[in-house]
């Protein structure tokens, strides 16, 4: 059975409830800005979006050149060049001939 309850009585109830459960009592819905204090800080998780830089073999090679970390890509290239040379397919030698005429200077 529904019956009208005085607004003051309801407000008393809300106030009491707020004091018991430690919540805010704001009957006139004033904007207090608490929303912004309640929000979680998300900067850390946003800043961690991209994977962090890790130490690579190239770094180790730079730090400890004496330990002989191999640059696999460079090694593969050198091997390929040597293989080509062994088959007589190396790059041609540079032709070292002086040009007969000096090229005209452009103005």
């Amino acid at each position, binding site marked *: 059975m529904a019956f009208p309850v005085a607004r003051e009585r309801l407000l008393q109830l809300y106030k009491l409830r707020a004091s018991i459960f430690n919540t805010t009592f704001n009957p006139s819905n004033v904007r207090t800005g608490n929303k912004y204090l309640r929000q979680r800080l998300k900067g850390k998780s946003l800043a961690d979006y*991209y994977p962090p830089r890790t*130490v690579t073999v190239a*770094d180790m090679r730079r730090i400890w050149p004496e330990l002989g970390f191999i640059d696999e890509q460079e090694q593969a290239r050198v091997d390929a060049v040597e293989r080509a040379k062994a088959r007589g397919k190396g790059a041609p030698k540079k032709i070292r001939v002086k040009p007969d005429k000096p090229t005209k200077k452009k103005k």
Partner: protein
Amino acid sequence: MFPTPHLLKARLQVGGWINARILKDHSKRVAFAANEERRQALRFIARNTQIPQLQRLKAQLELNAMPSNTRPTQIVNRCMMAGKGKGVFRDFRMGRFQFRLNALEGNIPGVKKASW
């Protein structure tokens, strides 16, 4: 001691696939994280109707004057495999094509091509 990126004094703190846009976005993220608390404090002052109007106005002006890099809306989720800015799955941090490639290759745990 094993070298870490910090000890290496690496200029880049982002690993993986890198391009200028990813670096730009990352710098925005770092700037936002550094200024987040200040922004929230200013927001609280500016939006709080119980604070004197002049103080609220000042807070709002200061908030507006902060560099645009410190705004969260400047941040765009980019594909961490290819740097694309559109069609990026939030859950996988990957663009739709990179997602497909990696899923088909089996690099993404729990993702399987549907077939019925």
